[in-house]
Every structure is written in C-alpha cells, then in structure tokens.
C-alpha cells in the first residue's frame, strides 16, 4: 500500500506569538517549530498501515526550507521518501491554494491512500484533506478513528458529534483525515534518525508543479483578541449567591 502523508511544520505549541502591527502572520524569528501534532497521528496511522500491508510511506510538506525538518522527522520514524514543496510565502496561500500545490505533488506519485491530520495548529483551516479529495477526484472521509483495508476497499470508523460513530466503506485510492489522539505516535530511534539522513527528499516549487493558485480569501490581519472584561462579583450567602448566578447565566449571559 503506497501512502502519502501530508505533514506541516508549525510554530511550537508554547511559542510566544509576536504579531507585528497590522500583520497577517506572526513574526517567525526566535521561535521553535515542530511537527503539527494532528499530522503526527496521521503519520503514525500511515506507518502502521505500511507495516501491515507493505508498500511505502511518502512524507509531503509545503512550506519554507525549515519544513524539511518535519519531513526528516517522518523519515526518521519510518517514511521511505520525502517531498518538499518549497514555498517561503506558504502562509499567504488560502486553503484551496495550499491544496492545489499539494495535489499537484501527489499527482506525481502512485498512491493508494492520502492521509492528513484534522487541521494545523497554526492556520487551523481544517480543509486540506477534503480539498485534496476534490482536486484529485478521489473519495474521502474525515475524522477517522479506525482503518481496515482489504481488497482495494476501506472500511472506516468515522467520529460524529455527541458520542456517535459510523462505519463507512470506500474504494481506494482515497483521502482520509485522521482524528487526533487515536494512536500513540512512535518515537524516532537513533537508528531511524541516522537512516533518515540517507533517504531522498525531492524539492519542488510551484513553477515545477505548474500551479498558480488564485486566492479565494485573504487574511487581512491577525491580532490577540482584547478582553474587555469587568468581573461581576456576586455576594451573599451560598444560597443567595448561587441563585444570583443562575439568574445571571440564564438571562444576562444567556448560556443556560
């Protein structure tokens, strides 16, 4: 089973975010980056499927030079090859534009499955997997908890809201967005890290791929939302305060 796993390198979860005034992206100096956590689950799923069914896992990433680090991590964990779509201005791409770049790279591969995480920790668009499916003309499913593959078909467990689940069947090739937390991603071992150095990473540009996306949306600016909060302290006995609170929650805050 040949699998392409899309991975993104994002600012570290605890990186302090500095936003230049009126800017549409954060300042990237002096912060650490890491593999997007949701993608880590997708990668682990891909590696397990390959171990079960044979084949290869290709790690694909769109981003600036530093994105190669995310690919290397995937290689160290067992992916066979990496593809880097090099783009310094990746943060200007809208979800459709990013997907178009990734789809063009995927079209060059013969794959049975394309796996993505649910969303990235930076943009958080949550659309990449679904858009890839449309652009590649493939069936898809999202929020996948479990994958059973046999005879060119997939049986998938999909998560719905409020504790509901559903099994669906799809033919392969297909695109799947993997739910976070469904597995414990493996550690890269010392041997894996050393082996990764010898694995191939192909670098492509938008020009190589013949992609010239037209934007469908634009982030005008990002900002830390200002909290104009005035705390209302409720006094009285426990009973009185509780009654006041329920009243406020019902009629003022209207959350009950």
């Amino acid at each position, binding site marked *: 089973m040949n699998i392409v796993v899309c991975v993104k390198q994002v600012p570290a979860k*605890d*990186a*302090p975010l500095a936003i230049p005034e009126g800017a549409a992206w954060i300042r990237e100096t002096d912060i*650490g980056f890491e593999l997007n956590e949701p993608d880590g689950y997708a990668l682990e799923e891909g590696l397990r499927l390959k171990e079960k069914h044979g084949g290869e896992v290709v790690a694909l990433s769109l981003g600036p030079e530093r994105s190669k680090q995310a690919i290397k991590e995937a290689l160290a964990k067992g992916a066979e090859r990496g593809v880097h779509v090099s783009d310094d201005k990746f943060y200007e791409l809208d979800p459709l534009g990013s997907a178009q770049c990734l789809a063009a790279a995927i079209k060059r591969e013969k794959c049975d499955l394309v796996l993505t995480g649910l969303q990235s920790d930076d943009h958080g668009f949550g659309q990449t997997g679904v858009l890839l499916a449309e652009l590649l003309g493939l069936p898809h499913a999202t929020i996948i908890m479990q994958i059973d593959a046999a005879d060119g078909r997939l049986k998938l467990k999909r998560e719905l809201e409020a504790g509901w689940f559903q099994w669906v069947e799809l033919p392969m090739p297909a695109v799947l967005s993997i739910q976070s937390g469904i*597995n*414990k991603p493996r550690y890269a*071992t*010392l041997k894996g890290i050393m082996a990764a150095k010898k694995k191939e990473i192909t670098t492509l540009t938008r020009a190589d791929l013949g992609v010239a996306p037209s934007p469908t949306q634009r982030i005008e600016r990002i900002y830390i939302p200002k909290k104009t909060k005035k705390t209302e302290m409720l006094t009285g006995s426990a009973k009185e305060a509780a009654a006041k609170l329920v009243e406020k929650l019902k009629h003022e805050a209207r959350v009950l």
Partner: protein
Amino acid sequence: MPVAPQRETLEADVLIVGGGPAGLACALHLAALIKKHNESGAKPELSTENIYLLEKGREIGANQLSGAVMDPRGLAELVPDFEKSAPLDTPVTDDAAWFFTSKGAWKFPITPPPLRNHGNYVISLSKLSKWLGGLVEKTGVNLFTGFAGSSLILEGDRVCGVITDDKGLDKNSKAKSNYTPGYELRAKVTVLAEGPRGSLTKQLVSHAKLDGLNPQVYSIGVKELWEVPDGRIKPGFVAHTMGWPVPASMYGGGWLYGMQGNRVSVGLVIGLEYADPLFDPHEAFQKYKTHPFIRRVLEGGKLVRYGAKTIPAGGWYSMPRPYVDGALIIGDSGSFLDAQKLKGIHMAIKSGMMAAETILDALVKGNASAKALSAFKDRVDASWAKKQLWSVRNFHQGFAHGLVPGLFHAAFQQISGGRGLVDPMRAHAGHEAYAHLDGRKPPAERFKGDGKLTFDRLTDVYHSGTRHDDDEPCHLLVSDTNICVGRCTQEFGNPCQYFCPAAVYEMVEERGERKLKINAANCVHCKTCDIADPYQIITWVPPEGGGGPNYEGM
C-alpha cells in the same frame, strides 16, 4: 520497572553527552581534525559519522541559558571568522559596576578589572549553541536532539558508553504502547559535557573517586529576558551590581545587559552555600527588579522568557580528574569556569577543543586508556585556560563567609596572582552551610508579585516554556521522603520549597498527613535541588529526552 529491556546497540568512535558550547566545540574541532587527518593520508582513516552527540533538549540550545557576556577568545580559536558568522548580539559598549542599597545605587568610580568587559560580546548562549549545532551538523557528525544519556556503561573502571533514555514509560514506569527502550550506545571515548552538576559526571566522579581537592560548589543564576520600550537602554550596555538584595552574609550579585531589539537580559546570581534554609533566590530576584535602577529600565516592558541554571563556582581546586579509561569530562561538568568573572563559555569551548585534540590521538593510536587520555590534562595545564583558572583559583572560596571577607581575600588574590592569604583555600559543599531553624517559622505566604514587573514562580515557569510529558516517570528521585516530613521539616523547614526556582517541591497536607509533593513537570533542569538539599537525598536524573525548558533567546 519493566523487565530488563532488550536494548539495541550502537557503536561509535566518540560519544559526546551534551550539546552545549563544550560538547559542540569538541565535536566541531574533532571533525576538523579528522578531515585534516584523512586528507594527509594518515591511517587509520576516520569518519565524522562515527561521532555521536546527544542533547537532551528538544533542540540544541533549548536547555541552555546564560547572562551572557562572552569572552570571544575560545570562539576565535574554534571559528576564526566568528565575528562575521556567529550570532553575536552586540559588542559591549558600556560596562559599569554598581553597589545597590535598597533605594540607592553607587557606581564604582573605576570598574574593577574582573568586571571590565570591553572586547567582549553580549550574546544569547542558546542562540550561539544553536548556530554551533548547525556547523556541527554540516560536518557529518550525528547530532541527536531529544536524547539523554541516562546512565553510564561501566565495566570496572572503564567507561564504555551510555544508555540513552527509555522513551514511552508512564508515571509508574510501565511501558506505554509506544515504549522504546534506550540504546546501549558504546564508544571508544565518551565525553561528558553535561553542564553544571551533570548527572553522569556525578555518577562517574563518585564511582572512580575523581574529586578534586575541594568539593564542587555552585551558584544559582535566575534570569529573565524582557522587551522594553524604546530608549530605555542601549544595546551593549552592561551593568553588574553587588549589594541589595543579596545580604552581606551571602555571595551574589545581579546583572543588567542591553541587547538588540530593545531586549534586556536581567538576573541575579546567588552562591548556594548560604546559612538561611528559607532563603528564596527567585524571590530575591523579583525584589531586585524593583530597585529604581532596574525598574526604570523594565517598567512597562514585557517578560519574554524566564530561566534558571546553576554555575560551577569552585574553579581550579574543585576540578575533578577529567580523564578515566574511556572518558573525558569537559566544560562546566569539569569545572572549567572563571568564578571571578563568572565566565565559562570561552573555557567550555577551549576545553572541548583540547579534548578533541586528545581524542584524535587516542583514535589514531587505538588507545583510550586513562593514561592516554591524561594528555587532556597536560594540554589543559599548558593552555591559557589553566592560566586564567589558576589566577582565580581561590576566588569563590573567599566568599564562603560573605561579601566583606570575600572582597578582602579577593584584593589579596588580585595582587598575588591568585595566591591570596590562603592557598589552597578550602571549600565546603554548599549544602553543609545551612543553620538549623531553631524554632523560626517559615513565611506564611509565598511571594506573589504584581504580575507586571514581578511574578510568582508559576507564572515565571510558564515563561520558561518548560514542557514534560504528563505521563512519565518522575525524574527527581528522593531516596527517603521520611526525612522530608520528619527531620528536614524540623531542622531546616524543607528548603527545597524555597531554593527551587520552578516551584517543583511542595510540602502539602493530605488527609491530615504531611507529605512531599513533586511537580516534576515544572522542572527547568537547573540542578539546584541536587546540589542544595541538606541531606543530599535528591538525585536529579534526565527525564525523557525532549523535555525541559525552551530557552529560545536566552
């Protein structure tokens, strides 16, 4: 504990434990020496791919911090064009020494020679190491981040390598589904470059009885990195202060450095050999910031990062024997730090380079015995590193009884090439200095801070970026917690609650019983607890690799 796991083995020529300036300098210089060696056609041919470097932090520089004002001497030897290529923040433009009282500040009319810094650079050690790491990677050396050296592989007196950290154990040390046992990493030469109070170094020094004349003594440095409004401070402005809030009975002092981009490095150093077990270095540092001289610079600014680390201050006489069969000890782990100037980066780099030269010989001759590696000590003895360390060999010991005796001894040492009035001046391990509480009550409330200029420890810890898995074994091993709730409470009031700058240790009441609570996830890997606990029952071991602080820019 899981049943003795099946460990994969790897064999290296050289294994360097620690990706700080010492370890990286060793790797970089060794790679250059190997290249020259191979190019000359000499045999046996060596490969940089057989050099492994382990760094426990998630990336190079993540667990490193320093003030720092660096003497470029070491770097100039390692990377001759460093001025063009190294990430030096700013040359020192202005340096001054001050004496603080609680409200006043007196500038020393003449900056004492040890505190003169012209020709030096204000840097971020973390950035410097990150850059050095990049250079090392280019040479083909295998750099592994997120991997710790957990224990030594000892065969008799020979160091054969290290076992790396077990990954994927839960808080009860049971295997999780992604359990990956550590590797048995064997090497002809293992270099311990773990920084101050290295855990493997501690193990080796004890096992092979490598102690120097004096036990090692340490100081703790607590630091914050700030971004302040325009015009508050010039890049390259360097001020060192003595006096308030450090009591005269203690060794310590503060610093304030101006960096590019309106960044300010500010911190306080306290010798970990004070008598008051309830003294709180973090609180002292927060108070320090309220001094008008400091407040004037920081007010209205933003806290960017916080961190703490210990500094080996024992100097020459505390240096362990730095060689055994199969291993060398360099950098802070080997006491390569000028305690008078509080500068260790250039020393670390030099020690790493001298180790590299020694190792090349050992690899070529196929002999890494203690005798062969003792050439490292010979190189040290013949170098400027020894000259500098020798001239300040009694400095820190003079301060064991406070500021005034310290300055007194220092003056004599200054005019006698370091000899001073007593040579060698003996030192005692810092944890032996505590006086009993004798009924004194601990403070009712801990320092809270105003949240703008001063902060409580938890807020500061948040800004250290420290991260550990929720579900991993506790890496702070307390051998007998009965002492904690019994003797220690009585005699010293549980100083771990006060000396830890990260609020790791707490005495709590649970169901009417007093017990020690360890918030291991807060740990910033400073090693203060391992050093300063009065009964020496705390052993710091590396947690699962990749954990710890994120000292970006520090």
